[in-house]
């Protein structure tokens, strides 16, 4: 297990190095070159010259890359020039990240709470109308553009019916901040109306963001349960007269959950892409909204950091999933 962990950690370092190369190449390929891209169009010749020296653009390319790597390792990615002009990209990321984590957690909860039971029921009723309807429903869920679904939810529940708020994270303005997770803050400080208010703000964006993970979790659960139901040990359990409940809990679900756990982890890591669209629609002040605004306003200092962070989160989640997988599944541990 230790050797496996070390090997995976080393692999991750390689992946991150290649990733930094890609982001570096991306920065070099930006329209007008990195100087115009990072400073914007209204830069003075002096500031351009300063940045050229600071970035070392007058030096050989591998020196430039090493400098880039150095700045990346110290978290110095420059100052925002479009999303929140004047703030450093790192500060912007740190203040917005809790919002996105909170939203992602709710989205994943929705995906899991609906995806796993429905997937199990569909597999048990293979070929029946419930199975067909849910499978087609999950395919429709994947086919609907996320931002359109977000707008539709906002239009119906916020604009037309007016039952849920349409934007931002909280309407209560005097809430105490502790962790940056507004629902949790409200619970810790026992400001129940603030927690409830933050929760209501999360419902619509979390549903929009959770749809694709839901569809994926549903389909993987269904496929995994179908595979397991076919196994000899389930037939043995049935023939020796175990109760249906015991078979389900001990034999079917425990084995079928392995790929599902992986899927949930990977979907969580990939949520940031969906968050770009969802947070933009609901003016939800998270990392996704910053990315959307960054693309719109071409705020490259912010974009280079956020793209790097998004990929890093994904890679780290990937690693954690693989490690937890090794913990759950003894077959992998002994390999």
């Amino acid at each position: 297990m230790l050797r496996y962990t070390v090997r995976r950690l080393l692999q991750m370092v390689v992946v991150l190095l290649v990733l930094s190369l890609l982001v570096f190449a991306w920065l070099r390929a930006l329209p007008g070159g990195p100087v115009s891209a990072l400073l914007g169009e209204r830069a003075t010749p002096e500031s351009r010259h300063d940045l050229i020296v600071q970035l070392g653009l007058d030096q050989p390319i591998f020196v430039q890359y090493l400098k880039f790597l150095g700045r990346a390792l110290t978290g110095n990615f420059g100052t925002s020039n479009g999303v929140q002009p004047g703030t450093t990209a790192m500060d912007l990321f740190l203040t917005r990240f809790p919002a996105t984590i909170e939203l992602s957690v709710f989205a994943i909860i929705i995906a899991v709470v609906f995806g796993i039971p429905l997937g199990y029921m569909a597999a048990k009723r293979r070929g029946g109308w419930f199975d067909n309807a849910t499978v087609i429903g999950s395919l429709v869920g994947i086919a609907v553009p996320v931002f359109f679904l977000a707008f539709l939810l906002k239009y119906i529940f916020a604009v037309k019916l007016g039952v849920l708020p349409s934007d931002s994270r909280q309407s209560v303005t005097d809430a105490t901040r502790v962790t940056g997770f507004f629902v949790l803050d409200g619970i810790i400080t026992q400001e129940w109306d603030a927690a409830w208010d933050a929760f209501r703000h999360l419902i619509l964006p979390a549903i929009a963001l959770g749809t694709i993970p839901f569809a994926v979790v549903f389909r993987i659960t269904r496929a995994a349960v179908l595979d397991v139901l076919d196994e000899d040990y389930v037939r043995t359990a049935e023939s020796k007269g175990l109760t249906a409940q015991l078979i389900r809990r001990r034999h079917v679900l425990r084995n079928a959950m392995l790929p599902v756990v992986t899927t949930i982890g990977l979907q969580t890591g990939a949520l940031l892409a969906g968050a770009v669209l969802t947070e933009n629609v609901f003016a939800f002040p998270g990392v996704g909204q910053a990315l959307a605004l960054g693309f719109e306003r071409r705020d490259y200092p912010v974009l280079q950091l956020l793209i790097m962070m998004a990929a890093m989160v994904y890679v780290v989640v990937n690693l954690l999933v693989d490690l937890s997988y090794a913990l759950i599944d003894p077959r992998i541990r002994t390999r």
Partner: protein
Amino acid sequence: MALGATKKDRIDALAKSSVDDSGVSLAASAWRRLRRNPVFLVGLGITLLFVLVAAISPLIAPHDPSARDLIDQVVKARNEIPPAQPGHPLGGDLQGRDFFSRLLVGSQQTLMVGVLATLFGLTGGLVLGTLAGAIGGWVDSLVMRIVDVMLSIPSLLLAFSIGALFAHPNQFTVIIAVATVQIPIFARLLRGSMLAQRGSDHVLAARSLGVKPGQIVFRHMVPNSLGPVIVQSTLVLATSIIDAAALSFLGLGNPNDAIPEWGQMLGTSQEVLDSHPALSFWPAACIIIVALGFTLMGESLRDALDPKNRR
């Protein structure tokens, strides 16, 4: 079920289905099961209808999609657009152009985005994948390392990042952005398929007959990868159309809307969804139905090619 948990597992499982040792022709046995599969037939029906509409839309569209016939009915101050009326069943858009004709003709560009993005992605993946799979060694390690890192960036985010590289976005840059995301997927798929075939009988037979390595790759291995490639392509057709819409929504799409495209129509009409929901609803419905058609077809093809189901 070839439904692996990770993106990589899914690609690898699909790649393995290019090796067939059942003795029955792959295409024949797949078709035998597909013919009676209602899911596949619905998907095929939607796809054929979509291609047909795209082909004949300039002929059947009642109006020129870029002509501002109804511009005098657009009242900016009162936020009014032309309502449905005789000759214009869906009314006009914000520029007073016949909306029904734009929807019909929009199918052409949408089909083009899907097909070109898939072709570019496939070509790039074919070059990288065969290179890695056929040569092996350090070329293989290098290519696959880069491919895996590209797969580790959420694909939509990668498409956005590539779209942002162009100072003046147009239809072509949208296609490039959406296609680049597919290159690593096809590369891993084709390499996996090559590796899976390396030890199989037909390659061994060819090698023992003294067929040149290059010929083995292009005459024997690549054709056998066709099944998985077709499956992945149908799925990519769907995602590329959806991704193109998302690019338009973020302002990374084609700003010139003289020639309509559904993704662009949907992406740019979101701002006025509150006042003119129909402008979003119709292109969204078209995209969802077409994407669903491709997905239904791709998923049932995947099941049909899966060796597990081929008993």
